[in-house]
């Protein structure tokens, strides 16, 4: 007769409330092959694990069944415990009597019966399990980092500093991501670029980092330790090795009317352009759709101007293969598209806010550019429609988020903080201006966060209305913002000069396709799923692939900064 030990966990009350633990223990003790069956309040705790270890040794167990939560939660825990007690870890299995039983059934009798059944099944499985020994395969000590935003840059630097080679792939012409376009950051109000640009330069120059800008992941094959990654290097029409970044080309380019991606359309750029002055690599790129040469065959002014001979209109996409051992995904986020048309059928636009129709209704990222010293107005707050200084600005929180009806249900986490920051930036620049904020709740959990918001209200005089905006219209050059102040219990109408919408954070464009290429799980909103939110927060269910940054969930800047530490430890 086999010697299987069964360990039933109460999970505090979680299992014990619905499953009659004593009855289950008595019943499973009778299963053929079961040597002993015991239960304990918290099997995963130290004393619980000690019980497992002790039984393995004293009863000379040949297999262990832990009846508790999902194996995705604690199988590794219990296998490790068994290993220390000298039992091959693969002779440990779990019966999921929590997620699959006690949490989904209310009838105690039936739940108990099912729990016993689940344990019986698992005993049957362990009876047939065989001891397994891990095999060793060679691995490539090289990492791929996807995305060159703040999270990706930091990940790349950490890994590179640890002495491993890093391949960093960024699809935009420059690394830097969203953070490169921010003005000042909460809760310290220090300059975003001052923090980021040195790191960008370091990334560009690091001997261990191989940077592919303006490139995308084409395909990924292989497995942990041995991935083969195909990278599509998009045609830039510039030889970045020859180019010196002198600027002769873009200052002379006659095609000047393309809205700048970096400034979110608040300013225009040329067809051959550097996304922003501090770009890394500091090399331009030609926008084929805007370039006169490409459109008509005439022009070629940049070609004539370029002393370095770096311009190549014949450039084509190239596919490059890199071998890596681990992959860090830092694909980032995008803002919820508040306009009328939506790429995703589940979402619908916010026609009531007039974004896209009224030039002075802008998004929070546009406001960052407006208030940034490197922005189109050199940091002066001027409204887009006529360049006037807005004397009354309304900031609207929760646009697209916390909206089950047509947006997304989650809280975007960072909007409360940056909206407070925006009111401060605005008030610091327009002293006689009025800053109104419509909010539902203020979520300012974090070191110095609450204090920061209070400062915006108490010191800088931001006027907070507890309520949501229902509609924005324009009349006589003013934006009529109709909302409610539920604390007073009446509708509020504000005639504003400019409105800033704190649009929700969504996973960046293409994260879904990337997830499919990498075989990563994602949630219903398209954020990449970690193995376990608490136990394995930076690992995915695919061994060797890690995630960080806002492609995992809405995050503020300090978050990826902290998480990278764990990730670095995880990679090797």
């Amino acid at each position, binding site marked *: 007769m086999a010697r299987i030990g069964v360990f039933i966990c109460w999970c505090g009350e979680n299992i014990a409330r619905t499953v009659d633990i004593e009855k289950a223990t008595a019943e499973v003790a009778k299963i053929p092959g079961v040597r002993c069956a015991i239960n304990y309040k918290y099997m995963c705790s130290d004393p619980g694990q000690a019980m497992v270890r002790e039984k393995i040794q004293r009863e000379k167990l040949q297999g262990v069944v832990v009846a508790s939560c*999902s*194996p*995705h939660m604690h199988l590794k825990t219990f296998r490790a415990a068994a290993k220390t007690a000298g039992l091959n870890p693969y002779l440990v299995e779990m019966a*999921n009597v*929590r*997620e*699959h*039983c006690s*949490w*989904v*059934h*209310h*009838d105690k009798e*039936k*739940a108990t*019966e*099912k729990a016993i*059944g*689940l344990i019986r*099944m698992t005993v049957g499985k362990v009876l047939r399990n065989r001891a397994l020994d891990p095999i060793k395969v060679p691995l490539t000590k090289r990492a791929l980092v996807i995305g060159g935003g703040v999270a990706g840059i930091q990940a790349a630097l950490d890994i590179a500093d640890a002495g491993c080679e890093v391949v960093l792939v960024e699809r935009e012409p420059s690394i830097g991501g969203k953070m490169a376009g921010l003005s000042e950051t909460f809760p310290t109000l220090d300059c975003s670029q001052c923090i980021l640009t040195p790191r960008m330069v370091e990334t560009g120059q690091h001997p261990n980092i191989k940077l592919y800008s303006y490139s995308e992941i084409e395909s990924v094959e292989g497995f942990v330790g041995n991935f083969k990654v195909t990278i599509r290097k998009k045609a830039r029409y510039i030889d970045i090795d020859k180019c010196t970044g002198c600027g002769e080309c873009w200052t002379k380019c006659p095609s000047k009317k393309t809205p700048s991606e970096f400034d979110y359309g608040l300013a225009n750029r040329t067809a051959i352009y550097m996304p922003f002055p501090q770009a890394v690599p500091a090399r331009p790129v030609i926008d084929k759709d805007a370039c006169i040469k490409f459109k008509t065959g005439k022009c070629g002014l940049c070609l004539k101007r370029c002393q370095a001979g770096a311009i190549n209109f014949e450039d084509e996409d190239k596919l490059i293969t890199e071998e890596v051992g681990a992959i860090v995904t830092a694909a980032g986020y995008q803002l919820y598209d508040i306009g009328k048309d939506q790429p995703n059928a589940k979402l619908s636009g916010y026609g009531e806010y007039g974004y896209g129709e009224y030039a002075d209704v802008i998004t929070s990222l546009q406001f960052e550019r407006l208030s940034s010293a490197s922005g189109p107005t050199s940091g002066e707050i001027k409204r887009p429609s006529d360049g006037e200084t807005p004397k009354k600005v309304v900031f609207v929180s929760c646009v697209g988020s916390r909206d089950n009806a047509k947006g997304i249900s989650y809280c975007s986490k960072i909007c409360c903080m940056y909206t407070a920051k925006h009111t401060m930036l605005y008030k610091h620049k327009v002293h006689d201006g009025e800053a109104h904020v419509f909010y539902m709740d203020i979520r300012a959990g974090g070191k110095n966060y609450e204090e920061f918001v209070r400062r915006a209200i108490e010191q800088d005089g931001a006027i907070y209305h507890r309520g949501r905006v229902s509609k924005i219209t324009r009349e006589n050059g003013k934006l009529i913002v109709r909302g409610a102040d539920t604390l007073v219990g009446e509708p509020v109408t504000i005639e504003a000069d400019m409105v800033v919408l704190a649009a929700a954070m969504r996973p960046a464009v293409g994260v879904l396709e990337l997830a*499919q290429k990498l*075989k990563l*799980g*994602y*949630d*219903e909103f398209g954020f990449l*799923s970690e193995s376990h939110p608490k136990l394995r927060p930076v690992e995915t*269910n*695919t061994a060797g692939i890690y995630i960080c940054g806002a492609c995992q969930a809405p995050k503020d800047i300090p978050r990826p900064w902290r998480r990278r530490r764990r990730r670095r430890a995880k990679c090797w």
Partner: protein
Amino acid sequence: MSDATGFEPKIVAYVCNWCTYLGADLAGTNRLEYPPNVRIVRLPCTGRIDFNLLIKTFEMGADAVIVSGCHPGDCHYTAGNYHARRRWTMFRELLDTLGFEMDRIHFAWISAAEGKKFQQFITETTEKTRALGPYTAYREICEASR
């Protein structure tokens, strides 16, 4: 919930480790209640689910069986579910020719994010099977083989 005869359907669900099992976990985490008639068997991938298991399941007295895994495009092993989809298309045809009761064999794509779908699917399948009653035709041949 059981009818006058006290019939409680026995249903076995073969699910993949990466999507549907996690979908079931999510149903648990969200406390979405469903009938306790289903026993989940966790396998790496729908592409791994041997058709023999279905037959064995009926032999061992199940009244319905479920196969569920990742949505197309989401397979943890790249294409296991695409292969499974082909195989089940053919297998169902065979079982149909053999005269199996096809409304006892259910397939679904349920992702790790679809706890709600898992709950609904299990509930519906249980109710449908309850309405069908025990799989007497199969039980008879098993009886005859004792």
